[in-house]
């Protein structure tokens, strides 16, 4: 674990999280290595979103440790804001700020958190918007965009701070089917740039294409993990097989 080369970028160890009586994560462990794409699959309520929210410190874990770049980020002594600034999160329902233009949505964190000068922040934001193919919408308000465009802006917003890891929580679930493709294509391009990603999805075909590793979550743990072709094509566990069959049928 201490060897510099095989230290995972993100390490989740025995994480437990419950809401009242309901135990959502029950000692879950998971590694994400740099430049890898790890895909979380599992039924609704299996803990995919909760895991992502715990990693982004939007929830406090009840037990266990999460390490980012070898540092325990669940330590309450740490400045959680600084940790969150190192990660990007994309939500299912975009969560763009409706009162800000696209450009201002993207430059908000660079200006307030990273203290980038306005002009430089705008240049960087335009470069990222260019990358997601929405430079021409910089002056638009979120409600003037389609769902797919809004989600691409949300991805640009998460990317602009050069996060160590991008967390994506079912980012295509709220989209019309014909808009899913543009977002998934973008994520594929991001993978090719070497971006580290941990993402939850119900899109099995996409998972197969993009994932270096697939983790099937069940009962608050990683029930089965492995290369995408193996977990999705020839699962070892009966429960995984049943889930994959239901979703690819």
């Amino acid at each position, binding site marked *: 674990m201490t060897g510099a080369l095989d230290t995972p970028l993100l390490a989740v160890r025995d994480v437990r999280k419950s809401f009242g*009586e309901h135990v959502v994560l029950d000692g879950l462990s998971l590694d994400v290595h740099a430049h890898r794409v790890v895909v979380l699959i599992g*039924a609704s*309520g299996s803990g995919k979103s909760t895991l992502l*929210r715990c990693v982004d410190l*939007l929830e406090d874990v009840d*037990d*266990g440790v999460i390490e980012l770049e070898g540092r325990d980020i669940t330590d309450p002594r740490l400045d*959680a804001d600084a940790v969150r600034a190192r990660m990007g999160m994309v939500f299912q329902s975009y969560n763009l700020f409706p009162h800000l233009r696209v450009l201002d949505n993207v430059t908000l964190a660079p200006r307030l958190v990273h203290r980038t000068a306005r002009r430089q922040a705008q240049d960087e934001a335009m470069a990222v918007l260019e990358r997601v193919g929405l430079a021409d919408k910089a002056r638009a308000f979120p409600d003037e965009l389609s769902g797919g465009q809004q989600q691409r802006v949300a991805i640009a917003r998460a990317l602009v701070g050069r996060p160590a890891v991008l967390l994506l929580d079912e980012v295509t679930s709220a989209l019309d089917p014909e808009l899913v493709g543009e977002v998934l294509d973008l994520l594929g391009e991001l993978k090719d740039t070497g971006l580290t990603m941990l993402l939850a999805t119900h899109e099995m075909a996409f998972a197969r294409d993009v994932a270096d590793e697939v983790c099937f979550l069940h*009962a608050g743990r990683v029930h089965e993990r492995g290369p995408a072709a193996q977990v999705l094509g020839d699962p070892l566990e009966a429960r995984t097989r049943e889930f994959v069959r239901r979703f690819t049928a």
Partner: protein
Amino acid sequence: MTAPAGHAVPAQAPWTPSPVQRERDAYRRARARRSTLAALVSTVALTAVVVLGVRAAPGWPRVQASFLDPEVALASLPRVLEGLWLNVRVMAVCAVVIVVVALGLALARTLHGPVFLPLRLLATAYVDVFRGLPLILVLLLVGFGVPGLRLQGVPTSAVVLGGVALVLTYSAYVAEVFRAGIESVHPSQVAAARSLGLTRGQTLRHVVLPQAVRRVVPPLLNDLVSLSKDSGLISILGAVDAVRAAQIATATHANFTPYVVAGVLFVLLTIPLTRLTDVLARRSGWLGAQSGLAGAGALR
């Protein structure tokens, strides 16, 4: 792996916090203790500075004698309390009437269609006028103007006319609160209700209003607190409420302490209302859409 699909592992599962977690919890407890202590010390220090500063003022002995005389306070208390009971009754009756009138006004303002234009205009004009008029002017105009008409059967009691003035003014405010609540209910809720075949009225009554009212309970209670204080203004019409009783006692004893007594009683009256507002605002489900969402709690 033994838990059945889709079921939570029971909370009695053999989980005990790991050493890491125990250390974290201890740190958080220590931090909470430190903040509490700091808050306590700073509060005591600030209070001490203010108290000592006031007591060091050259005029303090005279102020103490004329505003904080315990004997006068005790002597005036029964009368002021009696007056406060009138405030409470006025407030209770007015609050009920205000809610009914205001709801009517709010509904009138949300009616669509040309048929309802006069009603809508009337309600709008009413709200405009009575939100703009200072309460004290409404009190004076109603309190002295209406009896001047010498109409048969119209009450001339200061309490009733004062109550009418309160209702006139507060209905306009509360109507706007209700209207804000009604308009905050998402149009998709109306669409869903109408798609089920509910009429416009049924949709309003069973879908829109229940959500709207829940959302505006905290601001409504805020207005109720405000009303409880403004009920003291009926004293200018001659009604013997807490303020008027204190005024009389002040003249009797040649001492201002009764005003302080009335002030303390009003504060004691409104504190429970204010706390109730906080509790209702905090209780999930009452704040409508936002409170139950994941991540609605505080982030560190």
